[in-house]
């Protein structure tokens, strides 16, 4: 099993959700995040005074999938989140030891 975490632009959330639904991914966790990568945020100007806003609002999506679905899911997220402009975000994937469904106590791929 894999945990896929994606940091994306907030306005791409709907596209990513549609793309995941289209390939049969039913569960996800979405949270608000802030941060920056190489873009180092942006500059805002108030009455001529410049402020560098280096923590930019982002959306974090977490999805748990079994190993066979992993590459397809990763690809779907990247394609749906991409605008080809700076600040599109990052997606990463790590191995998961186990998953438990709270309601039933099922473990492993049955719990996804």
């Amino acid at each position, binding site marked *: 099993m894999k945990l896929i975490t994606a940091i994306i632009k907030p306005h791409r959330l709907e596209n990513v959700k549609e793309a995941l639904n289209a390939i049969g991914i039913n569960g996800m966790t979405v949270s608000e995040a802030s941060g920056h990568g190489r873009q180092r945020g942006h500059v805002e100007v108030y009455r*001529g005074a410049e402020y560098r806003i280096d923590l930019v609002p982002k959306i974090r999506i977490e999805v748990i999938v079994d190993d066979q679905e992993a590459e397809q899911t990763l690809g779907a997220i990247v394609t749906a989140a991409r605008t080809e402009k700076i600040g599109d975000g990052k997606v990463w994937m790590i191995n998961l030891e186990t998953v438990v469904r709270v309601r039933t106590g099922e473990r492993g791929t049955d719990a996804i």
Partner: protein
Amino acid sequence: MDSINGADTAWVMTASALVLLMTPGLALFYGGMVRSKNVLNMIMMSFSAMGVITVVWVLVGFSLAFGEDSGGGFIGNLSHMGLTDAINQPVGPEGHQIPLLAFVMFQLTFAIVTTALLSGAIADRVKFSSWIVFMVAWSLLVYVPLAHWAFAFQGGTGGWISDRLGALDFAGGTAVEINSGASALALVLVVGKRIGFRHDSMRPHNLPLVLLGAGLLWFGWLGFNAGSALSASGLAATALINTQIATACGALTWIAFEKIRDGHPTTLGAASGAIAGAVAITPACGFVTPLGALVIGLVAGAVCAWAVSQKFRLGYDDSLDVVGVHGIGGLVGMLGIGLFAALIANSSGANGLFFGGGASLLGKQVIASLATAFYAFAVTWIIAKIIMKTIGFRANPDDEIAGLDTTIHAESAYDFAGVAGGGSVGGGHHPLRDLIARSREEDQ
């Protein structure tokens, strides 16, 4: 009171309500510009002015500002203390008399908003108790004399600026605008910079609030300026349209200036430019033609947009730019009268330099402006120093860093706290608790 003019009275009382609304408008305008940890304190500094100045005004303030001149045009007398003798008394020229108490109320709203203006200069860093003490001292020692100089017409023996020198100031370019700008400069020099000035991000936390406040100020300003005609007349209409024109033009040139210099026209710039235009036309609105108002508004927007950026160069923390907007804007208006005043706009005014009146009016405007600025700066500096040395002016540094809303007022403006931010004592509304309750209902 048989000689009371009903239309004039109705207009002045209505205008009083309009001007009073400027102070809560200012509270929102300023409140949105500070950081979210200080917004309630910022609003309270304005709101408390409505309380403190009202009491000061009723007891002695009005009398000292508008009572019979005590000699030299410097200050009034104590004849109207407590206002008992003002009941059922008329004031004003024959045919345009209004109840003296209507005039008392109208002028009170000026005293309130002028005092509240100063709070923007020292945002985020002063003790609330010291601010209360400061307001009492400042309104009596600075505002009251300057209001007498500019507004007390007593047949040539009243305030020295308007009634003796003959400088023109329709609604308070000196006593309100240059006064608040010069006093703000003295205050920030004594009180000092916010902790983290030029280092921490101090960007406005709520621009819609700023725009709402600016809108209320614009609305109230129509009463401020047109009400200063003290009559429901053609002159009031001239002041009304001139105020609209200059406010609109100030907003336009400020954002044009920003677009050229910074690349973006901002909402904060539009709000600030509107205020700058309104400030500049305040002394001039009853003395210039609509085209004169247009030029004054356009100039004020650009000049003030430039002026507010100078504080970083000069190194003083006038937090919300009272000096750059009100001091400089007021000066633009006072000097603008010397150039654009026209007898066709007001037959009891004068012609300025561009209307064949020569340079003498401009000279008087310069004298009035400089005298006001000098007096306001000097006396405010002394008051602030005394407060600094005795009861202290600055908030505790820990409180300043934590924010004055929780430390001084024991309140938070916005309950957006997550798991870690909410308090558990005393119950009350809390987003996370609401979420938990809703989720429990769904399960049942």
